[in-house]
């Protein structure tokens, strides 16, 4: 399913099939082999982590470097801050991004600000893995996409991979990054399969991926919605509309150059994300494009996100919070109307 973009992007590299979950596990394993200062801490890691992201790693690296911790989110994050200041590179496992809210002081007031407040005396090289997103019937405290909160905080890098190859390459880049990185994997993608390169594969932070090229409209997205956007783009192509799909991959910093170049060409921008639309990161992109490219736009910029409702348990109600491929198609069709239709 990802063959087209994979072959475009990788050229000579040997490919292997991997799940999104396994790609993340491989990233941690390779970075721990490469750098003895890398270690991971979080609940149930010795048993492989809640989703199996660390399976077998404690056997490989020992209890010191794959550390099982109490259910103490504040201390998991805070300890990682102290450990990062003391010459190690911790990978923090938060289980669910929803639970990471128990550790917001440690991330926002401590990790993100220490380097600045202390006048650049040190850095805080940590990665916090915070799985996000809806999967079936996990309700309001296990389904949220809170990435926009962290894009608001100076000092943090925010990453949201959507494919197995990106989960490998971006997680490796994040572990090597000297800044605190909020790394948001999508829970519904764990089983997704795709080709990943062999060898030491690192994806640079801050670069978008052109998931599909197109001339008529630019769809900017990330994380789980990449797949919904690609599905919608196929249907739109049948109707003669060629949508370009950009997967930002990194939300801070986001790849303005690629987005502006694309929208400058297509004249239309639709931003699609799973998070609540109000104050979602799509608002930042929409506003930036409107400021920079207003006179080149053929249609008003548009955003698609969830309504401002908590996520329900029952599928009938839960689906009300989902952005569907059909919804994306409808939004694009609306943007393709003649400009003078009003």
């Amino acid at each position, binding site marked *: 399913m990802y063959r087209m973009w994979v072959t475009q992007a990788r050229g000579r590299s040997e490919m292997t099939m991997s799940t999104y979950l396994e790609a993340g596990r491989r990233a941690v394993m390779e970075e721990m082999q490469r750098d003895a200062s890398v*270690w991971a*801490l979080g609940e149930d890691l010795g048993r492989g982590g809640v989703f199996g992201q660390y399976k077998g790693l404690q056997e490989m690296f020992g209890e*010191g*470097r794959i*550390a099982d*911790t*109490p259910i*103490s989110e*504040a*201390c998991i*994050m*805070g*300890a*990682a*801050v*102290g*450990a*990062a*200041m*003391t*010459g*190690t590179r*911790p990978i923090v496992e938060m289980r669910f991004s929803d639970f990471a809210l128990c550790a917001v*002081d*440690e991330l926002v*007031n*401590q990790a993100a600000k*220490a*380097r*600045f*407040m*202390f*006048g*650049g*005396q*040190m*850095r805080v090289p940590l990665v916090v893995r915070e799985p996000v997103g809806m999967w079936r019937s996990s309700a309001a405290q296990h389904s949220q996409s809170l990435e926009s909160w962290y894009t608001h905080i*100076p*000092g*943090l*890098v925010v990453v949201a991979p959507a494919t197995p190859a990106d989960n490998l390459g971006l997680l490796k880049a994040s572990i090597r*990054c*000297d*800044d605190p990185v909020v790394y948001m994997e999508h829970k519904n993608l764990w089983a997704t399969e795709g080709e990943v390169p062999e060898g030491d594969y690192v994806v640079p*932070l*801050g670069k978008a991926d052109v998931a599909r090229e197109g001339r008529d409209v630019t769809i900017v997205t990330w994380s789980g919605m990449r797949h919904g956007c690609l599905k919608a783009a196929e249907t739109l192509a049948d109707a003669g509309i060629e949508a370009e799909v950009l997967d930002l991959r990194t939300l*801070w*910093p986001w790849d303005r150059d690629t987005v502006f170049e694309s929208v400058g060409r297509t004249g239309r921008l639709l931003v699609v994300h799973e998070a609540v639309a109000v104050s979602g990161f799509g608002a930042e992109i929409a506003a*930036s494009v409107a400021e920079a490219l207003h006179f080149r736009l053929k249609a008003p910029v548009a955003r698609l996100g969830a309504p401002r409702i908590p996520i329900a348990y029952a599928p009938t109600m839960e689906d009300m919070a989902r952005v569907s491929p059909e919804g994306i198609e409808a939004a694009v069709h609306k943007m393709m109307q003649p400009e003078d239709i009003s």
Partner: protein
Amino acid sequence: MTEGPSQRHDNFDRERFLDLLGLMHRIRAFEEEAIAGQKEGLVLGAIHPSIGQEAVAAGVCGNLETADLMLSTHRGHGHTLAKGAEPLAMMRELFGRKDGTCGGKGGSMHIADFGVGMLGANGVVGANIPIATGAAHALKLQGSRQIVTCIFGDGAVNRGPFMEGLNWARIFDLPVLFVCEDNTFSATTRTREMTGGAGAAARAESLGIETAELDGNDVVAVDSAARAAIDAVRAGQGPRFLTCHTYRMTGHTSVDPGAYRPAQEVEDWRRNDPIVRLEAALQVAGIEDSRLSALHRSEAVGMAEIARTARDTGWPEAAGAFTDVQDVGDPSERAF
């Protein structure tokens, strides 16, 4: 100068306690200059003086090596000086000037000096506890002989990170000394009224951590208890916990008159001033008054000179507001 309980100590190392007396004078002189500087508008934000609590800083940090790590609180000038930070750089930081400890980016509540193992004061009560725990965790992973000391106030024991950090330090047997500097007040509220059960030490003991409770205005007692605890921590015996009972002689901040404190209580503690008590002990041990007053004068004169130099230092470049934020997405490259 001779008021207060005089003490006679066995094996009293007079030169060592003269050094600690000098350090306590330096801390007090620093804070008195800072308070004066605030009245003149030189100190720009809030400062939280530790006047009356100097014995804790001196007694604990006097037993640490430079390579050891220490984390402090918003009331951290004393701890930071005792760990070896330069008073001139600190005063410049309080005045928001260039060449401050943190280049003018932190101010009083965010002083860190990694060169002397001072990993930061903290503006959030109790937030230093998990960070200290993590620093100790890293030291253990690295097989280091360094230890971490984490000093916090009595207010911190009512925050969740206190429990989380102490529990963590115990289960991982980390090389960390926790010091609760109990100055009686949580901001402007009496801590006793806000704390269930027997307080800090009882909570630490409930988590299996060995504790000692002591008179935090007696630097001789603090020094001896801290040395024993630090030796145990360094020997790999896991975390230790000290509660040092003391009293904040000022309000919560330098502009808080502290009118909620009964006058008699303040007066009683004034007679129990840790500097006065140590001077009395040194007199009993045969140190001449002239030497004691010379020590006091030398620190006060030196600190006045430091304050003058800090006042004459220029402001940091405004462009510094965009540096030291982050490498990836660096705002100094493109501020968005």
